[in-house]
């Protein structure tokens, strides 16, 4: 046997098998964008207002914060820890912490906001990674705990940034600022965060380790990967993007309260799973998650344009979710890797 290998190694020529695998891979990668395309086409047909640049920008603006949250939460799901349910609490905590620290300057305010989120992420990561607590139960408990603490500490009050001071004005301006050309700054941040998260997941050693932990924690452990350390990083990452979104949301609302991030937890899981990140861990990408986020955004926008009320919107969102999950499982079965 020789140690030299041919660089033009050819894959095993099993036509059918490859073809199915290829379909499935394409579906995994693009499936959600197919759905998005269909929705956009339907939108153009159903409502003349839909395709206007203003409306499209509006869609993007509406999903900006969800996109930022999902960029981090996707890692949690990817590592087979399902979801971070402390998302709303982290968003609220970040916003309140940032406003509280505004008297000490812009830097202190932002650092406090992000630091608050990172602290919660660290606690989550240590509990789940080292303490082996179930991630759903733990992050849910964390959400309740933080919620309670924030209500108690701030006695249920809202905090308002003081637009009269420089830090306050800066903070309020964060969500209103536009890039040259009129593109909203938060949306640009969202696209940047998504791109960075995608690169981290697919092109760094850390991303590959998260995938291994998600796909097979035991294999990761016996291969010498420090699994708890990876889990900690995953939760910290998730908390980081979440607190960025929390700061922007607080700035947008012009106030910080204990219920700032309400609803972002389940919306994030929905978008992440829609975007093709498997709850079994190790499959999917952040690019797909962006697709999931956009599908939710376009769908809700379209329903609003058509005058469907919010209850109807929830029903439709649920139906789309069911359809996409069903299609994913179908392709998985065709290629012989049904979920257990």
């Amino acid at each position, binding site marked *: *046997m020789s140690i*030299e*290998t041919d660089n033009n*190694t050819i894959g095993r020529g099993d036509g059918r098998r490859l073809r199915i695998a290829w379909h499935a891979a394409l579906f995994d990668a693009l499936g959600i964008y197919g759905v998005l395309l269909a929705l956009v086409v339907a939108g153009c047909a159903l409502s003349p207002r839909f395709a206007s640049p203003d409306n499209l920008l509006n869609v993007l603006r509406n999903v900006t914060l969800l996109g930022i949250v999902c960029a981090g939460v996707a890692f949690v799901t990817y590592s087979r820890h399902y979801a971070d349910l402390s998302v709303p609490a982290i968003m609220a905590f970040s916003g309140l912490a940032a406003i509280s620290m505004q008297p000490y300057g812009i830097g202190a305010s932002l650092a406090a906001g992000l630091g608050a989120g990172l602290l919660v992420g660290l606690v989550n990561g240590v509990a789940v990674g080292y303490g082996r607590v179930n991630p759903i139960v733990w992050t849910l408990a964390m959400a309740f705990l933080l919620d309670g603490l924030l209500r108690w500490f701030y006695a249920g009050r809202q905090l308002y940034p003081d637009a009269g001071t420089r830090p306050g004005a800066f903070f309020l301006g964060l969500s209103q600022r536009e890039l040259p050309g009129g593109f909203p700054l938060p949306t640009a941040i969202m696209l940047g965060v998504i791109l960075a998260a995608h690169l981290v997941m697919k092109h760094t050693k850390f991303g590959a380790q998260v995938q291994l932990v998600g796909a*097979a924690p035991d294999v990761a452990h016996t291969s*010498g990967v420090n699994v708890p350390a990876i889990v900690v990083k995953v939760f910290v990452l998730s908390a980081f993007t979440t607190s960025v979104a929390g700061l922007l949301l607080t700035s947008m609302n012009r106030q910080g309260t204990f219920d700032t991030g309400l609803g972002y937890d389940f919306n994030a899981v929905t978008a992440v799973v829609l975007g093709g990140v498997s709850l079994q861990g190790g499959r999917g990408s952040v690019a797909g998650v962006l697709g999931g986020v956009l599908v939710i955004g376009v769908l809700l926008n379209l329903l609003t344009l058509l005058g469907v009320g919010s209850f109807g919107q929830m029903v439709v969102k649920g139906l789309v979710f069911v359809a996409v999950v069903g299609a994913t499982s179908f392709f998985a079965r065709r290629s012989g890797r049904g979920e257990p």
Partner: protein
Amino acid sequence: MQAIPVETFCDGAGYPLALRMEGVSKRYPGTLAVDRVDFDVRVGEVHAIMGENGAGKSTLMKMLAGAFGDYTGRIVVGGREVALHRPAAAKARGIEMIHQELSLAQPLSIAENLLAGRLPSRRGWLARAALLREARLLLARVGLEDLDPQTPVEDISQHEAQLVEIAKALGNVPCILVMDEPTTALSAHEVERLFEIIGRLRRQGLAIVYISHHLPEVLRIADRITVLRDGRRVAQLAAAEADAARIVELMIGRAMNEMTIRRARAPGPVRFEACGLSRFGFFHRVSFTVREGEIVGIGGLAGAGRSELARSMCGIDPLDEGALRLDGRPVAARSMAGALRAGLAYVTEDRQREGLALRLRAVDNVLASLIAKRSARMAPAAARSVFHERAAALRLDPLDPSRAAGQFSGGNQQKLLLAKSLAVEPTVLILDEPTRGVDVGAKQILHEAIGRLADEGKCIILISSDLPELVGLADRVIIMRKGRFTREMQRGEFDEDRVLLAANADD
């Protein structure tokens, strides 16, 4: 390949040692799996460990691989006492283990699996070119140079997966390599290739521990043999002065007779018919019949499409063409539950991934397939009696209904799997490598059980790479090659050599 640095120390006979374990023990809750065992491996030696299912072989070696934080006793590696409480600690000492149950991560590519734990990177970015280059080198060392390292491991066959695992272990440049039943998924040809690799590694000074139930293999490859029974070391002998009968006696504490050839019986009426079955890319236009009380053996090389055929017949994988009939009635094998209701049962070759729910109790596993067959829930007492009847017939050890399936030794998991399929009382039983990883004594029990089932009138389709088993049990052998049936041989026309020849024959 670079030289392997081994700081040596010596045993009583003056041979340099790579490793010594002194009086090591390991207790699971309720079981003392390894009981004060002494064990050593010399540099450049293949040291085999043999013993019945549950004797403690895997446990002893997992201890070495750093799987347990709570073993007792001394482990000396390279002349220094070490504490191996984490896998990383074992790796740092140059100890690599290929686990009995394959451990590759599913959606990841071969390359990422091979280099898991030490992915090449530059400032945090994955160095993909280096990753693929190194993966190709490693694959070439186990003779898989024409496998694309970017293939996801879920798309490769079991025998390829086994070789990939070996390549993965070699990639860490170990000085002690533990192989726990590395040949169970390999065909004769691939076993040769593995032995070639082992021979080369031995000459390079690697210390190799080799666990196997396959006596001829062990006698060929091993320098010394340690026999374990009930967690104790009962003997250690040089392979040159050992013979099969003596080892078996040491293992099971009694002498054993040879594999018996099942006596021929008058063929009954045809009950099961498969007509023109195809799944594109896997098998093509396969037709055959099984008579009442007949064991039809399907022989062939690994990758010939035998398992795929079985899986499609049972509705686990899709079937593109063809029909199945049982007693003249069509079987709609669209789902496994449908197949089960129709009377088909499949014993998978991969007990860990799809055979057993490892965290559920043994009794729940055995009754799992009944859930599909009956709609009503079973009373706990009735459930336990079904379990006891099935498991006792196969001499499950320990016969404990409430132990989790994953806590049985490998061979006993296999018995559990068979018990599970028998619980539904199928008419047609499709067995895919039914005695993989099973010790000689248990194998005989399983063979007798299979023979009994046929005598009761069941139709049995037996897929096996174990030639004595295939030849000894089957009434008729069909050879499958590259997805097609190429030969059919009646009792009297086949023996081990002819089956092997036919399986390898180029048409």
